[in-house]
């Protein structure tokens, strides 16, 4: 959706602690499909950064390729961003973070970008406990290349119409727990009440913070049991062998209390079951996180909330013992040993 955004700011709009308006955290107008879950997540990121009173230029946004990976254009317009190549966001972020430990790294990826081509880098960035927020905008499909199944298909356990996905879905939350991630959470794009605090917590976590956010794709998440109007679209697309008809949809929002379960109806009429962790959930117990996850899965429910956090998390800089000042701030005098040292080195090779 493209339209002109008003630049004018009302003087009575709230500012945060450091004097920024919320608009200072916004980005360009989104060009995603109307109603795309990814846009809701962008909104939550804006809200979280605003509430945390982070200077926007102290954030670096990094992404791969996909609809989801485009979103960094649509938030934090004052931050540097890097829309890299497909599946390689983690390595770019790793290098960037090692160069400057003082920025906040916000990595955005899709389920295709992470669970397929990017799987290796995902696993290893977890292993290194890189200090970053890693958000997967998980829609169970490849949006940008027009709807192929991804390796996380099908989060609703209902098989897709037409091509039935024959393979087990990869649960990125279970996977990152197994790999020892120090912060593991899941949420739903339309659940602002849950999502915004989770993003804030993730940003504050000193280490790798993983956020799997279910984010329905309006256009290609064409599940069974869809409504009449969806049928019409599908029929038309099937008959004409084109996929050029995107229904304009509303963002799906949901609000449900902690400890409860809710059923969310997606754009096409199919539903998923979300279960929110109870308020007394102890997120420092990794084994019970595992167990709960498995139990929910067995019930066909998707557990949301902060499943696990390691309060002792040491980020990669601590693990590899770099100096406290950012490496990119070191100057020639700090770095270059000079000619005399070289004379000695030469001597050692004689």
């Amino acid at each position, binding site marked *: 959706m493209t339209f002109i955004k008003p630049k004018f700011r009302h003087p009575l709009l709230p500012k945060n602690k450091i004097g920024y308006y919320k608009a200072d955290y916004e980005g360009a107008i989104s060009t995603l499909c109307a109603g795309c879950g990814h846009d809701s997540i962008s909104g939550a990121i804006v809200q979280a950064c605003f509430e945390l009173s982070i*200077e*926007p*230029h*102290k954030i*670096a946004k*990094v992404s791969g390729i996909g609809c989801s990976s485009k979103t*960094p*254009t649509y938030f934090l*317009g*004052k*931050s*540097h*961003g*890097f*829309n*890299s*190549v497909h599946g*390689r966001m*983690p*390595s*770019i*972020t*790793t*290098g*960037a*973070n*090692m*160069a*400057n430990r*003082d*920025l906040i790294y916000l990595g955005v990826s899709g389920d295709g970008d992470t669970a397929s081509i990017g799987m*290796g*880098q995902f*696993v*290893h960035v977890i292993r290194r406990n890189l200090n970053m927020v890693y958000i997967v905008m998980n829609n169970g499909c490849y949006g940008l290349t027009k709807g192929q199944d991804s390796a996380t298909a099908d989060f609703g356990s209902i098989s897709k119409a037409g091509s039935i996905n024959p393979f087990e879905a990869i649960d990125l939350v279970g996977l990152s727990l197994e790999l020892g991630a120090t912060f593991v959470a899941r949420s739903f794009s339309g659940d602002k009440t849950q999502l915004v605090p989770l993003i804030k917590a993730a940003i504050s976590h000193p280490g790798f913070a993983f956020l799997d956010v279910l984010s329905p794709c309006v256009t290609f998440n064409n599940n069974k049991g869809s409504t009449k109007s969806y049928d019409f679209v599908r029929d038309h697309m099937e008959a004409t062998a084109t996929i050029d008809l995107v229904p304009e949809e509303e963002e799906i929002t949901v609000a449900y209390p902690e400890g409860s379960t809710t059923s969310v109806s997606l754009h096409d009429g199919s539903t998923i079951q979300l279960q929110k962790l109870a308020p007394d959930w102890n997120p420092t117990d990794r084994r019970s996180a595992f167990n709960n996850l498995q139990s929910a899965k067995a019930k066909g429910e998707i557990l949301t909330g902060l499943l696990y956090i390691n309060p002792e998390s040491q980020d990669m*800089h601590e693990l*590899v*013992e*770099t*100096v*406290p000042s950012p*490496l*990119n701030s*070191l100057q*020639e005098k*700090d*770095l*270059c*040993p*000079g*000619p005399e*040292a*070289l*004379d000695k*080195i*030469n001597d050692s*090779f*004689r």
Partner: protein
Amino acid sequence: MHQVSIVNDMVIRFANVNGTGSASANNMFSKAIFRMGIPVSPKNIFPSNIQGLPTWYEVRINENGYLGRRDGIDLLVGVNAQTQARDIQDVKPGGYFVYDSTKKLHQEYIRDDIHYLGIPMMELSMQHFDHPRQQQLFKNVIYVGALAALINIDLEVLKQIIREQFGKKEKLIPPNFKSLELGYQYVLDHYEYPLNIHLERRDKIGDKIMIEGNMATGLGAIYAGATVAAWYPITPSTSVVKGFETYAKKLRIDPETGKKKYAILQAEDELAAIGMVIGATWNGARSFTATSGPGVSLMSEFIGLAYFAEIPVVLVNVQRGGPSTGMPTRTQQPDILSSAYASHGDTKHILLFPSTPAECFEMTADAFDLADRLQTPIIVMSDLDLGMNSHLSPPLVWDEKRTYDRGKVLNADDLDQIEKYGRYLDVDDDGICYRTIPGTHPTKGSFFTRGTSRDEYAKYTEDGAVYVRIVDRILKKWETAKKYVPTPEMYQEQNSSTDGILFFGTTTYAALEAMDLLKQQGINLDAIRIKALPFNQHVVDFVKAHKRVFVIEQNRDGQFRSLLVNELEIPPAQLVPVLNYDGMPITADAIMQKILSNLPEPANHKSKVL
């Protein structure tokens, strides 16, 4: 079989089994010759395996400084039973075969045109050492002792090397001394010594050092201020980052806190390694990676990103033999085209071609300046021979007045002065634009880096005209680069022949020797050594000035020649390929033969009288 003395001019080869500790003994041997003031050049010919397979160590000693590989073995120390038959064949007539006479030599191995010198190495070792592992290890030192007597190496020089090496592990010194003496004494007792081929002290080393190219490359990165090294192990590049680490540990640890002013990231693969480099340089650190052919192939998508998004990258390609996994422990220069044009789409990359460890050091440091200046990948094209073998090299030099060229980077003050910042605006008309580092300024200078087409303000666009503008501007940068990259080396004041010879990297050693060999036959060639792509005017002039130019390189397809033709629009017929691609460094003799076979009218090539 009586021969005249040959002093300080020989090739000695050691035939060993890997994993038996011969490497350290062999190194000691070369170092001693170096310390005797005699130019020497050892080459390891090792298998892609850890233990139990044949490995050779070939040492060329030449007081005139010809240190390329030469065919014909004058003396072979054969301590590997598996290869003895072949090893004996490789000794040149009149040469020597030194072997472990603990076991009797096969009768059928006896040639009547070479000398056999048996030393009961294992027997001596077993007499003096108890533990099998020590017996095996010191057997090697025993043959070094024997050689010392046979070809006249100063024992004291060897001992001094041992003292220095084991300074901190003193208990290892006496058994090493003992072993040396065992071998030495055995020769004294049993043979006439020294042999007709032998050494005499000289002073032909000057201030030179003996160092592996990869170590010098690692040091170059230290001096250039690299702080983030990301890599994935692969022979023959692994020791580049090891070199970096060795000196980082010595020179880059904060003395008070013990914390590191560098980060070395062993990535999960080569794709991740170069991704980390791109992330780090994007974020304002100097960063590099080192790999070999397979790694470059894997990196190619990312190389294209760096080219198109204009991100500085320093990539060291220590080339090895063959396509695919090929001959991973042999040397070639086979990645010229795949490095120059790495990645899909219209791309071309700046290449540097060091030919000595000193140049590995210098060009690696240059690579960081060039990468920052030109905002593009710079590929340092080393090879296994240069990287993993010790070479006699000019000392590493760091000019006191040298400062880092960080290129066009805007700081917060600069940004305050600018009305509207455009990341890809060609303000200076040299094709190079101004970049900003994340976090620099609260409101100005931020932009979106991307591998997709975008306009001068880094805004995504699918407008074809804008795309053309941007890629044409990147091509302008290529022109600008010609001013910055190292200029070729010429080997004559003025051209004096109709024919020229052109080379780069490790072909240099043999090429220069071949030129001298040809000169002795009255054939004079003008020569040029190329140090970088893009080629600049000097290269054009050189080629234009000659009817025919011999292009010497170590690959099957004449890739460098293709590059010359393609970049300089040279008629291919003007360039005569001189190729070698068997995995061993090219020899002067091979070059000479090839050139001679192409010179039907030798008269033309005599030096003109000016």
